């Protein structure tokens, strides 16, 4: 390719060219505007940076080619005929360009989010080093505050939420018998928005005054008063949020319109149900956090005074808007995990999922109830006090649909033929640890108790029980479970089990004692603490280092197995859902023959039952009827 051609074609070269142009544009815009309105200081670094934080990402996205097709189409120029040349990956390079294949995008998502998981994890290690003993060990208080703020933001917005979208991106079209997602180009854009958001959060460390240090909750008016780094958070959240919303819309349309013939809603695998429910939450709730952060940005940039009490602003309004997203976000981070666990448990217990319809309805119940509990994060905030009682009742009631799921998984185990594979171990670890997180959640719903423990380490313990023992364990389960399908290779089972047991033990040693220090009076988000908490904090820190090291086993296993692992069969788990009926990895367009669905997805042990048949061979070979299952 010629040098000029290289800069004209979509890709990294063009992105590298467009980004400095974006910076120049931002500079011109700010300087021009300020000159026009007669500001004495024409050159304002903070304003230029803020504008650049919007423009440069778009320059990058346009440069790398996310918008090429749409721009041509919108301007009436001849579009490149849809030859699906953007589909599939023939070499590693195809993972680094705008690719419209859902399988490639799924892997792009998963690898990118794990990079941010590692970075967020390293920050957690620094946090625990600082807390190893009372007094100052490593960093100054402001840096400490930025460490836990960036840690939480990366883990929530750049790992848990998008990694689930990545797994679903890969698996869901296969599960419902579709050749791809409904909007492949939107899907590609959704992915490329993510690295933008993540790099922006990390880049806040370069801002004068340091990275944002107001926690991932960014409560106003602290967030409206902090230095420039805060803008990196408020704007990065817009990009991450846009990515989430676009993906969720894509999932909704895909699931509603692209199911294989015969796949009624009640023949969908529960992972599809889970992502359907999650996507509903995302499209309804995410605009609220976008709004809250835009309001903070306007307060900061132009003195809009939304949250400034001196300017008739309302400080508590921020929390209402923020939690109206951020409580449903807890379920956005959990429901896809419920789906993964359902798939893993049923396949490894060789039994139909117990109470399929109740499992589906309980997801919808959580979606509805999830919108009615936000103010339980505000029991001591000073909001109008009567709201506390209904919020307490709805909060505790969410335990009911969640309980249905836990009990149904347990009943699925009962009288099964249980294979303790690595994904199954993580699923079982999830069921037990999530129960503990649910119990501390009940306590956090009860107002007199939460008055004492809110904003203490008890809350830190609780969120890590539900988000690590809960969500991250299901992510590990999902990654191990679909690893053979995604890579066409098998991971090392022994290393996987070792990873599980080390994670399980050190997870509990790290986060268990946090309940104790929290109830005993240690507040969260502190760089220093009273001497009485020294012993337990030392134990927590040492456990957390070992917990962090256990992740290296996973990393080695994944990388080595992807490269050198033995070839995987099409269906190593003898599962019944559609994705296991095609080769590993699947053909470029998923199904060479379109499947027709004739039964439920989990008919284990039912003689002659099939989930789907392929059109050409309709009556001859029932899908999923491998010899082993029916041969007894």
């Amino acid at each position, binding site marked *: 390719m010629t040098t000029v051609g290289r800069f004209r074609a979509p890709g990294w070269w063009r992105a590298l060219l467009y980004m400095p142009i974006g910076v120049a544009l931002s500079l011109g815009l700010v300087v021009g505007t300020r000159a026009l309105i007669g500001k004495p200081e024409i050159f304002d670094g903070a304003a230029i940076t803020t504008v650049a934080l919007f423009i440069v990402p778009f320059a990058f996205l346009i440069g790398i080619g996310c918008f090429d097709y749409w721009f041509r189409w919108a301007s009436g120029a001849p579009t490149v005929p849809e030859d699906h040349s953007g589909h599939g990956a023939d070499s590693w390079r195809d993972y680094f360009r705008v690719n419209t294949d859902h399988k490639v995008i799924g892997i792009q998502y998963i690898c990118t989010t794990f990079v941010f998981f590692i970075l967020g994890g390293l920050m957690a290690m620094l946090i625990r080093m600082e807390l190893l003993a009372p007094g100052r060990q490593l960093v100054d*208080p402001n840096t400490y*505050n930025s460490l836990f703020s960036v840690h939480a933001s990366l883990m929530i917005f750049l790992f848990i939420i998008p990694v689930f979208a990545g797994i679903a991106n890969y698996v869901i079209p296969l599960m419902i018998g579709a050749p791809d997602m409904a909007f492949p180009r939107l899907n590609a854009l959704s992915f490329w928005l993510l690295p933008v958001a993540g790099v922006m959060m990390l880049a806040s460390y370069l801002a004068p*005054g*340091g990275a944002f*240090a107001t*926690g991932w909750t960014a*409560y106003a008016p602290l967030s409206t008063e*902090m*230095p420039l780094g805060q803008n990196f958070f408020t704007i990065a959240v817009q990009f991450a949020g846009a990515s989430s919303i676009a993906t969720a819309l894509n999932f909704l349309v895909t699931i509603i319109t692209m199911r294989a013939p015969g796949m009624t809603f009640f023949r969908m695998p529960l992972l599809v149900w889970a992502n359907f429910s999650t996507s509903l939450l995302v499209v309804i709730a995410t605009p609220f956090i976008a709004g809250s952060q835009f309001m903070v940005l306007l307060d900061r940039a132009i003195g809009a005074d939304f949250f400034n*009490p001196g300017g008739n*602003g309302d*400080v*508590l309004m921020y929390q209402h808007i923020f939690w109206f997203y951020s409580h449903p976000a807890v379920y956005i981070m959990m429901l896809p995990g419920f789906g993964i666990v359902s798939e893993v448990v049923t396949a490894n217990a*060789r*039994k*139909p999922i*117990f*109470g399929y319809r109740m499992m589906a309805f309980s997801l919808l119940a959580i979606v509805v109830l999830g919108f009615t509990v936000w103010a339980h994060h505000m029991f*001591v905030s000073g909001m109008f006090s009567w709201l*506390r*009682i209904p919020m*307490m009742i709805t909060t*505790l*009631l969410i335990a*009911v649909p969640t*309980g*249905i799921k836990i*009990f149904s998984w347990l*009943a699925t*185990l009962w*009288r099964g*033929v*249980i*294979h*303790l594979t690595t994904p199954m171990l993580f699923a079982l670890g999830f069921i*037990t640890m999530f*129960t503990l997180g649910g*119990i501390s959640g*009940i306590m956090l719903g*009860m*107002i*007199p*108790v939460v*008055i*004492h423990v*809110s*904003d203490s380490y008890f809350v830190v313990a609780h969120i890590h029980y539900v988000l690590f023992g809960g969500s991250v364990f299901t992510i590990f389960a999902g990654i191990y479970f679909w690893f053979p399908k995604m890579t066409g290779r098998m991971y090392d089972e022994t290393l996987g089990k070792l990873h599980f047991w080390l994670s399980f033990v050190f997870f509990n040693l790290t986060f268990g004692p946090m309940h*104790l220090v929290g*109830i*005993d*009076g240690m*507040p969260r*988000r*502190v760089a220093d603490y*009273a001497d009485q908490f020294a012993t337990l904090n030392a134990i927590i820190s040492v456990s957390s280092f070992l917990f962090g090291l256990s992740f290296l086993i996973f990393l080695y296993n994944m990388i080595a197995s992807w490269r050198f692992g033995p070839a995987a069969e099409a269906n190593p788990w*003898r599962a019944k859902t559609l994705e296991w009926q095609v080769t590993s990895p699947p053909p470029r367009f998923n199904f060479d023959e379109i499947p027709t669905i004739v039964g439920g997805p989990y008919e284990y042990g039912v003689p002659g039952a099939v989930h789907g048949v392929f059109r050409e061979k309709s009556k001859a070979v029932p899908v999923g009827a491998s010899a*082993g*299952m029916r*041969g*007894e």
Partner: protein
Amino acid sequence: MAEEKTETGARSRPEDRAAPGKGTGHPIGRMFLIGSIASAIGVAGVLLIDWFPVQASAGAEDVDLLYDVTLIVAIPIFVLVMAVAIYSVVRFRARPGDMRDGAPIHGNARLEVVWVAIPAVIVCGLAAYAWVVLDEIEAREPDSLQVSVRAQQFAWSFQYPQPGGRPVESEELVLPAGRQVNFTINAVDVIHSMWIPAFRIKQDAVPGIQTETRAVPIRAGRYDVICTELCGAGHSTMRQNVRVLPPSEFDRWLAGQRGAAGASGGAAARTETGAQTGARTPLQVGAQG
């Protein structure tokens, strides 16, 4: 523990899977027994743990009891989950090469109704109990002592309104035992939160509005007053003390404060109390940059 008991079951022949284990009783009966023992041990264990700081307010006991009751309700549920999970894994685990499927059970309407109804009843009961406790600890008593709390980066200050005079200002929180204190709280810069763990109370201090909380200190002594809402770089240094005195000593202290304020102005009084009580001087860390 559950594993050992059920080990024989795991080794039983596969044909026995559907039937109750021989000789050792029905599996559910055995699990119930093991579960009850484990729950009892668990409940005893968590009740032995000294979870809470000292109970220095009248409401503390109610809150701690509510917490303990919740634990007592929750532990059998956790044990049930663990017992079923461990029992199933041990008893229904596939041997190598076992390619069979499990029993094709799709559900059981009666069982599902039970595990919707029982948790619903439990959480409604807990919510009702919590409501009652809340009303109790927040009940307003006549003749309560009024204290205004002002939060700022990164220190607390306190005012005792005096009928017909200037309020007494203090950097140390001093309270009488046995009388309800009504705190009205406010913040001058960003949100803070006043937590007195020994009283089991916490209330955000919000700029622009006044918030309230109350407690009845019952034990003389010195306890922590901690900021629990991230308020900037000095957040972790925003820790002070509350000193609870017998009523007569408190009256003396207040009179002294009044006198000192009258004689030499608030600043001198402040220095004096700070010196004599050894109150932690908050480290002033400015929001940087």
